[in-house]
């Protein structure tokens, strides 16, 4: 048996699927050899991005760069290799009273991926993106050299790499700050909104909350357009917690982890089932407003509770469409987008609305800017490209853009916003697609 490193690789949306060479090494020396001996390389973490972002001619998987390096328990500064997952960080930090400053909706992404995708969370308006808390990282550049990047040292590479989608090199190790927490629970309020006007009003009223997000039923039309539930939350203090939780505030009970055992057949998800799901989800909450304490996993990572939930969309896969539209145009833009989706009947199982705060101008490759962002899942089928085109029209008209981490078929005028990326070595299929469509 001779090694053959070519294999089928796909990201979380199971679309597209490519057959490319993928390797993983844990020694920096071997990574250097790998980089020098290949013409085109792209780093890949846990493959939780969507679309073609971490796919390339040859893929370097950081899965074996999975070790912690140090943890300053006094100041909450952690250093680890880039393939360490956020879930690994939480496993050791939460019991010590520390949480991630910024986390996306899954904890199964790598720390390197968090930088390359410059991830945001439910607190963007209050605490910004992941990079705000990164103090330094080590980057392997195209000549195989390892450089330290921080705000002071190699700061040009530092900022280009943040949100740079892996096109500046391979991130090897990362040092970042954690936030103090007193408990592993969130004080949550969830409020039902009848329509778009109400949800926008609720978002603006909730500006002082650290975490806000809305789940939105995107198949509703007319006066129900924008029917949604807003969830806002704060890390609970120990003294606020009910007695049963206050005893061990930093420990969560073990839960059962259901798994989706196989790809669901294509007919399972259709307009009707999505409608029923959304109706049940909306009606589950009978009161207008519910206050509760919930554990951080349920609040931040509801879908992580179901292993392999991406298989629900069947073998043809799905895309996630996430755009941001400037704040002043936000309501009108969202209205048009939701109307277009409702009219298409191509419902999204999961639609999440958020208000972004101001961006950090130094992190110029960062996706978020002040405005409204909507993330939608769509099953891949023959009608999808048409819908994406229509949605792209609206996003373009209102001066918005598309999140590269989730992009797989949007037009390049909405995705070609990266600056200071000059490497000919580090290339992804996504980047090539964008560049080729642009010329």
């Amino acid at each position, binding site marked *: *048996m001779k090694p*053959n*490193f070519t294999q089928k690789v796909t990201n979380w949306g199971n679309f597209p699927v490519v057959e490319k060479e993928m*390797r993983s090494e*844990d020694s920096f020396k071997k990574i250097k050899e790998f980089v020098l001996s290949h013409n085109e390389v792209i780093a890949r973490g846990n493959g939780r991005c969507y679309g073609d972002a971490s796919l390339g001619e040859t893929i370097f998987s950081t899965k074996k760069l999975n*070790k*912690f*390096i140090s943890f300053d328990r006094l100041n909450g500064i952690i250093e680890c*290799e880039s393939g360490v997952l956020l879930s690994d960080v939480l496993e*050791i930090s939460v019991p010590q009273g520390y949480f991630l400053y910024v986390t996306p909706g899954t904890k199964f992404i790598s720390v390197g991926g968090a930088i390359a995708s410059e991830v945001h969370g439910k607190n963007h308006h209050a605490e910004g993106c992941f990079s705000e808390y990164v103090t330094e990282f080590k980057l392997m550049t195209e000549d195989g050299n390892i450089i330290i990047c921080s705000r002071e040292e190699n700061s040009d590479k530092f900022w280009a790499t943040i949100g740079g989608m892996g096109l500046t090199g391979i991130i090897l190790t990362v040092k970042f700050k954690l936030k103090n927490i007193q408990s592993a629970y969130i004080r949550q309020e969830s409020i039902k909104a009848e329509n778009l006007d109400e949800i926008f009003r609720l978002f603006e009223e909730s500006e002082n909350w650290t975490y806000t997000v809305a789940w939105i039923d995107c198949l509703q039309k007319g006066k129900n357009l924008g029917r949604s539930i807003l969830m806002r939350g704060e890390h609970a203090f120990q003294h606020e917690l009910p007695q049963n939780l206050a005893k061990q505030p930093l420990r969560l009970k073990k839960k059962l982890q259901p798994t989706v055992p196989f790809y669901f057949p294509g007919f399972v998800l259709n307009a009707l089932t999505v409608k029923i799901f959304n109706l049940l989800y909306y009606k589950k909450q009978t009161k207008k407003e519910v206050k509760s304490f919930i554990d951080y996993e349920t609040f931040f990572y509801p879908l992580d509770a179901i292993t392999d939930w991406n298989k629900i969309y069947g073998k043809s896969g799905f895309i996630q469409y996430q755009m941001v539209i400037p704040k002043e145009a936000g309501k009108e833009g969202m209205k048009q987008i939701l109307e277009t989706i409702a009219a298409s009947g191509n419902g999204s199982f999961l639609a999440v609305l958020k208000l972004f705060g101001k961006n950090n101008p130094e992190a110029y490759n960062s996706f978020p800017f002040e405005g409204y962002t909507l993330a939608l899942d769509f099953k891949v089928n023959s009608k999808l490209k048409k819908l994406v085109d229509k949605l792209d029209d609206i996003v373009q008209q209102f001066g918005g853009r598309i999140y590269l981490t989730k992009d797989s078929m949007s037009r390049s005028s909405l995705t070609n916003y990266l600056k200071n990326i000059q490497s000919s070595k580090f290339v992804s299929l996504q980047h090539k697609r964008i560049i080729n469509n642009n010329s």
Partner: protein
Amino acid sequence: MIVLGSTSEVAQAFVEKALQEGEKFERIYLFTSSRETTERFARHIDVKFLQQSEVIEIDLMKEIDYNKFDHVSSNVLFCAAGYLGDGTEEGLYDNRNTEKIININYSKLVPVMNFFAQKFESRRSGTIIGLSSVAGDRGRQSNFIYGSAKAAFTAYLSGLRNYLFDKKVHVLTVKPGFMATKMTEGLPLNPKLTATPKQAADCIYKAFKKQKNVAYVLPVWGIIMMIIRNIPEFIFKKLKL
């Protein structure tokens, strides 16, 4: 815990699993031929579990200075040292390759195992876990040098288990089957028959707690190897396995 072959992903996953389950070790002794990689692991378990460890260099291809690990003492020995080598035709007739496979998997490894086994014997307690291979269950044309070394190692572990039984020391033989590790990266393995290091560690930990004698990592391998062992030789020799 004493770990032989500390860069092995299965060994590292087992150490983590044991620590996660709350096993206590005064110190973990990490034997390795690759100091850099192992020191990273040592730091990792210190950060993650506040577990002290010591990295000790050992090269099974060279003369071994036992004085260097006279102070090493523990109640668990986990041996993951091994070398797959080249199983192709060129590999077969390459004596360096052959010797390295035999040395690392058996002939140079056993004296080191014996050194520690003796300590266990005099303490009259402890568990020795050895990672052998399903390749040792029957010689097949595709990798029988490796398979024969592992067969010898399996026989050694079985004899050791027998010898140490009334000295209150338990020996567990693990036969992992295919595993998705550095050793097999890029090989065309059937994913249904391939275990991740984490899966392997969970299974080995269970077998360790239950004091099992022999454990296949994925149960299906027990069945596959039973069939392979029972194919009559006059048929087996014609197969391309």
